[in-house]
């Protein structure tokens, strides 16, 4: 029984196996849709190559988008946040210790005050 394996959260429910079955059905539908394509499609030859406005294809090293170029817009928008946050990560072990002692002091003071 599939429903025996459902996870109750108290206000909702999650059936992994039902989800998996739905996923399988979707995959089958996708395969069927793919099957409607024309079987006479040509493979090989120049027309499968990427068309870069008539320019030569770059070599593989330069096609690959490097990690630093991903999420450029996000990082640019959050520049101020990241500047402050990385400023905290000094790498200085004395600062690390100071944070530990700081949190400890706050906890003791708050604990004794209440």
């Amino acid at each position, binding site marked *: 029984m599939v429903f025996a394996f459902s996870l109750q959260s108290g206000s909702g429910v999650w059936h992994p196996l039902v989800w998996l079955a739905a996923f399988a059905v979707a995959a089958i539908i996708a395969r069927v849709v793919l099957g409607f394509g024309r079987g006479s499609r040509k493979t090989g030859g120049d027309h499968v190559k990427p068309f870069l406005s008539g320019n030569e294809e770059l070599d593989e090293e330069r096609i690959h988008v490097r990690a630093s170029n991903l999420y450029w817009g996000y990082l640019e928008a959050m520049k101020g946040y990241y500047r402050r946050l*990385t400023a905290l990560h*000094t*790498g200085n*072990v004395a600062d690390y*210790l100071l944070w530990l002692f700081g949190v400890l002091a706050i906890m003791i003071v708050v604990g004794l005050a209440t």
Partner: protein
Amino acid sequence: MLLDLPFVAVGLIAVIGLGAMIAKKNLIKVILGLGLLEGAVNLFLVAVGYRQDGIAPIFTNAPEGVMVMPTVQALTLTAIVIGVATLALLLTMAMAIHRHYKTLNVERIVKLKG
């Protein structure tokens, strides 16, 4: 009053140790600050086990009277052993860092940050 003296010493040593760990720039001094803190904790352990006019907790041949608490002494000894291992490890690491970085200034041992 006189019995409180060890606890005053504990506080003093701990504060000196903490200060050295946070404020000193030399890695060796930071590690020695840790050593002082450890000494403070050990002294605290022994001091709380002390009973006025207590004798050594050896039951063979023991006269009547109060004994000082033996458990804390065992704890202190264990803590000292662990402290020796910790300090040896830390100092060895400091030697290795000095060998590669040519410095012991904690503000310049920051190849890992951000």
